[in-house]
């Protein structure tokens, strides 16, 4: 019997690196796409026969840099190696600005049934600041084209908490986006690692520093507005119309197994968290030389760590940690096991204890880290 899992495929190419990005992606390497896809196919074939796919997620980078033909070949390969559920959710991330209806229809014909569009903002100044290669009107056009091409399940990514961004421009972007009625919205607070271009500009005083208080206000505004538009706030950074929650990600938050393929992709299988090498050249070299292992890190998660991760991930969800589920899967009574942490967090107003579950309060959603770290097991010193 094949194990049911989600499949993540990483596509590390971008036309240009965004100013806030510190993900594994590479600009000016598009000539390497065919070789990379060959490698990815080989890696897929290595896992042949083991899995049944409930969801497929193409992330990046910018997967929409692949041609429709390349997609089709990749899907052929996936279809040969795995069985794919009839109801499988198949998502492709894409950026506005280069999408034609013909291309989108081709994707649909490959089996893609969900699009995630990196809109980020509907304000051209902000898009410039972020180093995006598209305008607000191109983003709107991309959404409309996607709808016309028959896509019903569309997500928009938006970013708030930009340096110098007030509440008003965020409200405008959000209003405009929600009024288009995408089934799903992911709202991310800008967070910068030291290597991001924006971090350097803030460091140099060219841009004002990030303002966590403003971001908190923007988040609260989003919660109120999107509720009015009929979205459910089902995860800390994710909103969806009922029934359109991202199933691929939900399964990660519920500690279900997934396989990640491609450079820097992560897997969670048999209680092991593994991550492939992060360097594109090294990945290609390893695959081409027939190496069996592309893995850079491999961590077997012990019982206490699995439990901690399970609680932390579950608490990200609106429904929180289901007490019956933890009893069933981990054999513990959450309320007893974490009684100290829970009573402290309830006192702090960060956690709410209901009859059958434990979940973050609205304040707790903004201060999630203060909740999460308390559930980590003691480090062996």
């Amino acid at each position, binding site marked *: 019997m094949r194990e049911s899992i*989600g499949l*993540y495929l*990483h596509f590390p190419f971008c036309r240009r690196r965004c100013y806030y990005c510190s993900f594994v992606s590479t600009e000016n390497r598009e000539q390497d796409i065919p070789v990379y896809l060959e490698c990815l196919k080989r890696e897929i074939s290595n896992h042949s026969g083991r899995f049944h796919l409930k969801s497929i997620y193409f*992330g990046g980078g910018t997967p929409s840099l692949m041609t429709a033909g390349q997609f089709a070949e990749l899907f052929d390969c996936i279809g040969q190696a795995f069985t794919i559920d009839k109801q499988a959710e198949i998502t492709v991330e894409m950026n506005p600005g280069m999408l034609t209806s013909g291309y989108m229809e081709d994707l649909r014909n490959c089996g893609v049934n969900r699009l995630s569009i990196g809109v980020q903002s509907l304000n051209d100044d902000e898009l410039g600041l972020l180093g995006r290669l598209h305008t607000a009107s191109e983003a709107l056009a991309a959404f409309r084209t996607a709808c016309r091409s028959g896509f019903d399940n569309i997500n928009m990514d938006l970013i708030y908490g930009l340096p110098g961004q007030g509440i008003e421009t965020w409200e405008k972007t959000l209003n405009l986006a929600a009024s288009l009625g995408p089934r799903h919205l992911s709202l*991310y*607070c800008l*967070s910068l690692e030291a290597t991001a271009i924006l971090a350097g500009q803030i460091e140099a005083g060219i841009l004002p520093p990030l303002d*966590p*208080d403003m*971001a*908190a206000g923007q*988040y609260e505004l989003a919660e109120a507005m999107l509720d009015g538009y009929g979205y459910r706030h089902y995860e*800390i*950074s994710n909103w969806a119309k009922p029934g359109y929650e991202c199933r691929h*990600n939900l399964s*990660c938050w519920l500690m279900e197994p*997934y396989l*990640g393929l491609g450079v*820097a*992709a*992560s897997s*969670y299988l048999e209680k092991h*968290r593994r*991550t492939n090498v992060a360097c594109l050249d090294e990945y290609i070299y390893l695959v081409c030389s027939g190496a069996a292992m592309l893995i850079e*890190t491999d*961590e077997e998660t012990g019982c206490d760590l699995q439990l*901690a*991760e399970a609680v*932390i*991930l579950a608490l*990200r969800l609106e429904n929180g940690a289901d007490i019956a589920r933890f009893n069933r899967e981990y054999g513990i009574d959450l309320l007893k096991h974490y009684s100290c942490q829970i009573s402290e967090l309830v006192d*702090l107003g*960060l956690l709410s204890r209901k009859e059958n579950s434990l979940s973050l309060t609205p304040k707790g*959603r*903004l*201060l*999630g*880290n*203060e909740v*999460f*770290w*308390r559930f*980590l097991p003691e*480090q062996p010193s």
Partner: protein
Amino acid sequence: MDQKSIRNFCIIAHIDHGKSTLADRLIELTGTLRKDKIIQQVMDSMDLERERGITIKAKAVRLGYHSGAGELFRLNLIDTPGHVDFSYEVSRTLVACEGAVLVIDATQGIQAQTLANIYIAMEHNLEVIPVINKIDLPGSEPEHVMKEIETVLGYKSSEVLLISAKTGQGVSELIEAIVNRVPPPAGRSDLPLRALIFDSHYDDYKGVIAYIRVVDGVMETGAKLRLMGQGTHLEVLELGYFAPGPTPEDRLEAGEVGYIATGLKSVKECRVGDTITLASGGARQPLIGYELPKPMVFAGIYPTQADEYADLREAIEKLNLNDASLTFEPESSPILGQGFRCGFLGLLHLDIVVERLEREFGLSLVVTVPGVKFMVTKTNGERLAVTSPVDFPEPTEIQKTEEPWVGISIITPSGFIGALMDVMQEYEGAYKHTEYLGQITVMGEESQRVRLEYEMPLRSMLTTFYDSLKSRSRGYASLDHEFLGYREARLVKLDVMVNELKVDAFSRIIPPEKAHDTGKSVVSKLKEVIPRQLFKVPIQAAVGSRIVAREDISARRKDVLAKCYGGDITRKRKLLEKQKEGKKKMKMIGRVEVPKEAFLEIMKLG
């Protein structure tokens, strides 16, 4: 050896004027050690130290010297501590000598501590041989310095020697001068024993080793002895001198310098400045008034983690075996838990002790704001010695407060007089006197040098005073101070509340007119160093019930990982683990997490 052939002397100098280099050169030139052996010998001692766990301090070296006239002399060079915090020790060292070599840097001229040292030397009738050192340096101005010595110290230029301790130039002449000008010791071997303790240290194997100068009588191995000041009884287990390694001998006669191993368990039983005599049939009069070291500066020392209290106690007790001037008593703070209120000779002494506790004993410490000992007379007539702000009475209970004052001597190029007068005013200094010294070149320009005399509360000196003095004079001003006595003062206690909780570690005693400014700088510094909490935290400074400054640390509103998908989980978990570890390094003040650095920052504010 004949007493007439002995010369006991020390080297006195302002810091960095070349005392140690000169000592090395004297050892080398007298042939006590060959040049290539100096390093070697020191290394051998260190190995011994490791093997046997004993500490050998060459505090007094015996040098053999054949004079130009062919006579054999025995020179005893006695080391002096270099810092003003240890002026009591310096004065006791000088008492053990008949002469002093006064070293003055040819590039810097007379400095504040040069004067302080020479005054002590004159007080004890020492023969002083002034030398101008570093004449080999390109920036040296021996003529100017010579003039300064003539006018300020009153020596004739024919009495002053020009040397370079580094190259050895003029050092042979200096040794001749020591032999010819320093008088031989005057004591008598036929009188009952009197020997002065001028230093001591604790050795794990032999107990306390005392460094002594025999003034009268004879010291012999096995002798039963008594300390006249402290009344301690002891037996000489071993006796000898340093050359420069410890060299046992059977006896030390009047005029000699050496060491005795006592078997005593702590240097507290065998303090510097005491006079040793025979247990029976001893002398009647001690050599010099013996004083207990007086701690001048007090601070609380606490472990960052409460469970390290026992380790801290053990560490302080161990340090105290070798440092009799460190005082300590247990103290408990509602915020910091169990710790010690410690007394120090000065700020440098405090720094040394804290650094040794942290480095040698691996402790993590919180040190409270250093203060002085106040004498408070309460309205009910009760008199209190207050060394911790916690014990400072309420304003209504105080009839009179007295605090220690110090005399300050600053030597500076005249161009900085204005700036330094401002500094002194800021720190409550009272002007006494200005004295003009010689000329010196400062940054390529001829400059008059002056000595400013002030008096100020010691309390004021414990703040950022020294840093201000150095920065406003661009490092040119040198400073010396001496204790004057207690004077009446108008003072109040400034309390600091973090989230409504009074934090004794942040309290300080200040003049009422400074309450507002000091309060403001303390609360803004705390606002800067305490991270935002999950709730609003008011930081207040108050005198009694009157709030003089307030800042609020607003509640942290957002702290959450926005993205956490399949690919991020391990990395995000590591971030959370780091956050968790960080919490452990915090000191809790009520519900508020305060980083250890906050205490340091507030201490630095003074």
